[in-house]
């Protein structure tokens, strides 16, 4: 047999079997390297997400089920809600430490903080920036507290001990007025943002422009952190954050148009760009005559078909609530779709973040329902997202 192989090799023009083997191995080695590299590359892109995904899936398993929500809704009063939440370690550690609403916000802030810590490098900027939400909420709360004259203890109950400003919250709370708050914010990105909104505040006496400027800064820059996607994961994160920005803009415009506001009135509260609804489209929408005009102006985006279904309900009731719930539902569906589509990448993190936010919003609705008189469990259930 060896002679046969030697004969074949020689007839092919190779001087010896060694030369043939050397060339054959060279070719095989190149093929093997191509096969190995092309197989390993997609697998290695999943690698950075395996650890964070296992952690968020563990937390997803601890989210309240529909049955558990029903049990909470059936609670007789706030104390029973608190007792129920004490049975869950994620909430128990904050329930006795803070007022209930603050405890819920702190739990959500802890989730943001966890995601920012465990997320892989290519999506870290976005999750780090998302954590600034708590800085902005804290600045807003402290400014409002100063405006309405809350005491130090009352203000302390409003602030969330997360975010980059957590170590200077005491200084901020001790500030006497907005000017001192701005000084206490020195060396951060916020003094200029607050300062820019002060003339309107002084002119109108309303805090809304300051709050809107801060919210605008957060969402605009959050979108910017994911504006140039490097891969599938960052592209999906862009889609999710972009959807949040779009939904916020559309809600504001619908609300404004339903109240008959004009372009100039709405403009300060709109984030100048979006994902599907870009700058030029936003201007068109703001210039629309009424809510119907806004919905038809969205033609060509994914929002038009979902909002068209709510249009008849709006015509019947005159309430924009159906648009808002449709848009919230659309955001949840987008997050779910991403979670299913990209199970080995950023999907589970986006899916979990959205579900956690939804859980906290629903718990706050229940708490409000229990705190105020006249809300039956059925009514509270209907209010849930």
């Amino acid at each position, binding site marked *: *047999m*060896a002679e046969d*192989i030697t004969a074949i090799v020689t007839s092919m023009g190779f001087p010896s*079997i*060694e030369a043939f*083997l050397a060339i054959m*191995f060279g070719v095989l080695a190149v093929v*093997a390297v191509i*096969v*190995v590299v092309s*197989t*390993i590359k997609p*697998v*290695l892109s*999943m*690698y950075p997400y*395996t*650890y*964070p*995904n*296992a*952690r968020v*899936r*563990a*937390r*997803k*398993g601890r989210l309240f089920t529909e049955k558990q929500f029903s049990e909470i809704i059936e609670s007789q009063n706030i104390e029973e809600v608190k007792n129920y939440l004490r049975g869950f370690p994620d909430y128990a550690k904050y329930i006795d430490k803070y007022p209930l609403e603050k405890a819920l916000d702190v739990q959500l802030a802890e989730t943001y903080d966890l995601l920012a810590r*465990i997320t892989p490098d290519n999506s870290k900027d976005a999750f780090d920036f998302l954590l600034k939400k708590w800085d902005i909420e804290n600045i807003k709360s402290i400014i409002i507290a100063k405006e309405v004259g809350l005491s130090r203890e009352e203000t302390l109950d409003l602030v969330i001990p997360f975010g980059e400003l957590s170590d200077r919250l005491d200084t901020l709370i001790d500030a006497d007025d907005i000017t001192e708050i701005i000084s206490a914010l020195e060396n951060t990105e916020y003094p200029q943002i607050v300062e820019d909104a002060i003339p309107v505040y002084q002119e109108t006496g309303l805090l809304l422009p300051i709050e809107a400027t801060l919210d605008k800064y957060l969402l605009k820059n959050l979108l910017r952190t994911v504006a140039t996607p490097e891969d599938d994961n960052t592209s999906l994160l862009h889609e999710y954050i972009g959807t949040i920005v779009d939904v916020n803009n559309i809600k504001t415009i619908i609300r404004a148009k339903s109240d008959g506001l004009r372009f100039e009135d709405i403009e300060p509260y709109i984030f100048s760009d979006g994902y599907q609804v870009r700058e030029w489209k936003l201007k068109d929408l703001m210039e629309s005559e009424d809510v119907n005009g806004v919905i038809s102006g969205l033609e060509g985006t994914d929002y038009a078909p979902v909002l068209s279904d709510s249009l008849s309900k709006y015509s019947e009731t005159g309430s924009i609530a159906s648009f808002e719930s449709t848009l919230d539902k659309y955001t949840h569906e987008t997050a779910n779709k991403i979670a299913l589509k990209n*199970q*080995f990448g950023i999907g*589970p993190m986006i899916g979990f973040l959205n579900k956690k936010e939804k859980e906290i919003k629903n718990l706050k609705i229940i708490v409000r329902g229990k705190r105020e008189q006249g809300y039956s469990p059925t009514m509270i259930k209907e209010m849930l997202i």
Partner: protein
Amino acid sequence: MADIILGTALAAIGAGVAVGMAGLGSGIGQGIAAAGSVGAVAEDPDMFARGLIFTALPETQAIYGFLIAILLLVFSGLLGGGEGLSVTSGLVAIGAGAAVGFAGLGSGMGQGITASSAAGAVVEDPDMFARGIIFTAISETQAIYGFLIAILLLVFGGILG
């Protein structure tokens, strides 16, 4: 240095491919499974034993590759000083090494991804353990095919026995 004939040298390449490629697949797979399991244990310390099982599953591919490599080294005369192999048998040995090596590479990586997902699923819902193991074990079949073909090549190629 002892004289090594060409057939034996080819068998040595086969042994290298067997353990190298299978080890590569197993290593990557086990790394992915371990990262997922560590995440699961960080959230639920009771997951340690189950995480360890999921992490250990992609080890088998490296064991198959290692076994074939040892057989090749022994029966090609590199270990134990037996008779060397002919060139033809050496080529068969490369085939056996490639079979278990490449099958182990794909199987190990696939099993690692499934094991990591299974660890995540179990920490989300502990009832998923048995089903997670079944799904993870399915990726083992490719490595078994590679291992069986490697053994058959060694037996019928005249290297074993």
